[in-house]
């Protein structure tokens, strides 16, 4: 959408390559276009930029030396894990180094007694649970990309997943992050106890999109695998009824292990793809999962069923086996690729809203479908209010691209208006940076910039992401004058 290619400076490139080659073996420093091309984007492929140089360190010492060198040369550094992020957080900088942590993928220690694992940032999310499985343990956060996404990226985005209502986000499941600052100093945030002295910088670093420090080692918590899990698949003839049913489950004092919703267009798209046996006549489907001991699950499923019935579900199916449970989930888990088949491209949004405003927001989205002439199925983490509308479009049609961007912008601003946020779990990256000017006041953005300077005075780590500059907000404000009132009237206009 925003292909801003910067002019490559061959002299500078040569200088950076030379410096990095003194730290890394020759094959770990890439600069030919054919070698750097695979790094030009992350999961948000609408934004692309070739990095000036790609560096592939193998250990912490190399990371520290690279960062120190880049600071001396004043070269921007963008850290990257598996590149599955959906907000362009790992979009390279054309005059910078793309620091891939993909080679740092060892599980350094796994302690089944203390229930923790010490891993390198490039380790895949699912690989941790696989390694812990023989001990009856697992790593709880399960973003849908867990087969591929790396734990370093999860830390950078504070990734969630379908089970985070009950088991928490990455933040709640990481004990310690060891990282390098741009000055090449190794720091530890948190520790292997439950807290650390000083300010809780672990919380601050979590979700900071690689802008404060580069993680080199992460200690995650492992939790006992629940004995069993079952899921209820409930059908509703109205989306708002389904939203209210989710609220009613919570009002009954139950925190389901998973509470997910799909609207009819999403259900139809996935059914064709996975054949989960979904009711295609339903306006919305709710997946409501319970986990724990067999007795506990039976008790909770009974309670949840009663609540869903009272809330107007017209049909229920309760998984009778693990195979059936996975089948019920298969559609929700495959929602993105399934929707992807309907259209050459799709654009996934990530706003969070107070659940009670769901009906209003979905009606608003339906109106925008008509306004922009684009379809938009919805999947929704109903338990925590995190909404993923998926706008279907064709990127080869510049007008569709423009309409998609405007559509998405309106949805995000609606999320702010109803008391929510522009991003629940995908991060701001480059994608939602303009909406940050709407969600936050100038003083708050100034504080974010001050926090950034506290870690990275020269602004070299992942610059131009997440936190918009004053200038950018002024420009964005100029583009969207509403009712003759410019936002940020206190700013000088250029």
């Amino acid at each position, binding site marked *: 959408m925003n292909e801003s290619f910067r002019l490559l400076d061959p002299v500078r490139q040569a200088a950076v390559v030379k410096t990095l080659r003194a730290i890394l073996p020759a094959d770990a420093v890439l600069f030919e276009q054919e070698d750097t091309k695979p790094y030009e984007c992350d999961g948000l492929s609408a934004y692309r930029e070739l990095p000036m140089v790609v560096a592939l360190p193998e250990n912490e010492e190399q990371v520290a030396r690279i960062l120190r060198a880049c600071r001396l040369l004043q070269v921007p550094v963008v850290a990257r894990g598996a590149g599955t992020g959906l907000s362009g957080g790992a979009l390279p900088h054309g005059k910078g180094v793309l620091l891939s942590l993909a080679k740092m993928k060892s599980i350094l220690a796994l302690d089944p007694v203390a*229930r923790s694992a010490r891993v390198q940032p490039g380790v895949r999310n699912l690989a941790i649970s696989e390694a812990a499985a023989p001990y009856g343990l697992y790593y709880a956060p399960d973003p849908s990309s867990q087969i591929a996404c790396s734990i370093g990226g999860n830390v950078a985005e504070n990734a*969630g997943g379908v089970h985070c209502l009950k088991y928490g986000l990455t933040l709640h499941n990481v004990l310690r992050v060891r990282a390098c600052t741009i000055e090449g100093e190794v*720091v530890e945030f948190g520790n*292997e106890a439950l807290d*650390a002295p000083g300010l809780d*910088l672990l919380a601050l670093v979590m979700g900071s999109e690689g802008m404060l420090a580069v993680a080199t080692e992460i200690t995650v918590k492992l939790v006992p695998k629940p004995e069993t899990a079952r899921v209820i698949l409930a059908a509703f003839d109205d989306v708002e009824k389904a939203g209210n049913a989710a609220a009613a489950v919570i009002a009954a004092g139950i925190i389901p292990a998973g509470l997910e919703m799909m609207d009819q267009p999403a259900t139809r798209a996935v059914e064709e793809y996975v054949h989960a046996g979904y009711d295609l006549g339903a306006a919305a489907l709710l997946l409501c999962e319970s986990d724990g001991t067999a007795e506990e699950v039976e008790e909770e499923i009974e309670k949840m069923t009663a609540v869903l019935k009272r809330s107007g579900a017209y049909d229920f199916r309760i998984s009778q086996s693990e195979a059936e449970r996975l089948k019920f989930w298969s559609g929700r888990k495959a929602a993105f690729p399934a929707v992807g088949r309907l259209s050459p491209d799709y654009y996934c949004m990530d706003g969070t809203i107070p659940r009670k405003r769901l009906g209003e927001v979905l009606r608003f989205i339906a109106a925008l479908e008509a306004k922009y002439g684009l379809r938009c199925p919805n999947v929704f983490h109903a338990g925590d*209010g995190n909404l993923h509308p998926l706008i279907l479009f064709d990127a080869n049609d510049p007008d569709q691209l423009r309409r998609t961007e405007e559509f998405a912008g309106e949805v995000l601003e609606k999320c702010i208006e109803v008391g929510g946020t522009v991003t629940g779990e995908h991060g701001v990256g480059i994608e939602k940076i303009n909406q940050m000017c709407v969600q936050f006041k100038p003083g708050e953005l100034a504080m974010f910039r001050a926090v950034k300077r506290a870690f990275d005075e020269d602004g070299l780590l992942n610059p131009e992401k997440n936190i918009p500059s004053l200038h950018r907000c002024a420009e964005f404000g100029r583009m969207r004058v509403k009712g003759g009132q410019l936002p940020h009237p206190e700013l000088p206009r250029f």
Partner: protein
Amino acid sequence: MQEVVKRYADRIRAAAAEKKPLRLRGGGTKDFYGEAPRGEILDTRDYSGIVAYEPTELVITVRCGTPLAELEAVLRAQGQTLAFEPPHFGSGATVGGMVAAGLSGPRRQAAGAVRDFVLGVRMLDGRGDDLSFGGQVMKNVAGYDVSRPLAGSLGTLGLILEVSLKVPPLPFAEATLKLELPQDKAIEMLNHWGGQPLPLSACAWAEGELFLRLSGAASALRAARAAIGGESVAAEDASSYWRAVREQTHSFFQGGRPLWRLSVPSRTLPLELPGEQLVEWGGALRWLASNADARTIREAAAQAGGHATLFRAEDKSAGVFTPLAPALAKIHRNLKHAFDPARVFNPGRMYPDL
């Protein structure tokens, strides 16, 4: 209420202009905690009350001066709770002080700490600017997470005006068991049970007795009791026991010796230190009442991979908190400067240069 905020902001600006420190204080129940408070008192109790409460959204937004007891009563009426069981340490405890102190009680091992439940804050920084971070929703990654690090910041970064907290439902049922075990065996068993899908929500070991609390569905409790064994504790005795551990009215805390809080990895073997110990959080928290010298205690904690805090003592000359590594200390100073450039908020309460 907005006029109270304005008054606070004016006061902060004046203090910053005159470089006169302010001592942010609610009910004063945690005056004992941290390094000695300094500065002119700014009483946060004028800004009190509940801003918004949506039980089905699991979120409450509260003003800093609200009595903690009042918040808990409001939640209880809706069948919800502060899952981290913050200690009050006195009837005057306020919500702002609870967040700033960042202390969590027995349920922390299962539920998480104060910071894990903070969703957003409204605060005044050292310039008197009224800023909001985070929000009222469960998932939010817009911008840096400035709100959670305020938990446990001891008021060094700003005046917390309002906080939004995630408030989960009360457990359906609870049961407490008592077992007689020596400390090493208790720690071993706590780590063993921690790796099982058991509904353990609290534990406390002292003087050869291990108390375990189970929380969850009645059926899960029955199964867990069978798996763990031990003797059942009557509900009333159990609730007064857990209150005594949480509020430190348990006889262990009454000795008058310096009280140390050692936060260590849960599997750490019993620490060979002079004095008495009380173990919580599945082994991850060791209270130590001891006259041993600070260096010995800090070294033992560091050796285990944790840290030691001089929690209650007459003489705090050894420093309350474990000193930070230089690179980390520098980030702390930089952050302090970002939030509070004139150093008006609780200077020295955490570290001398903060």
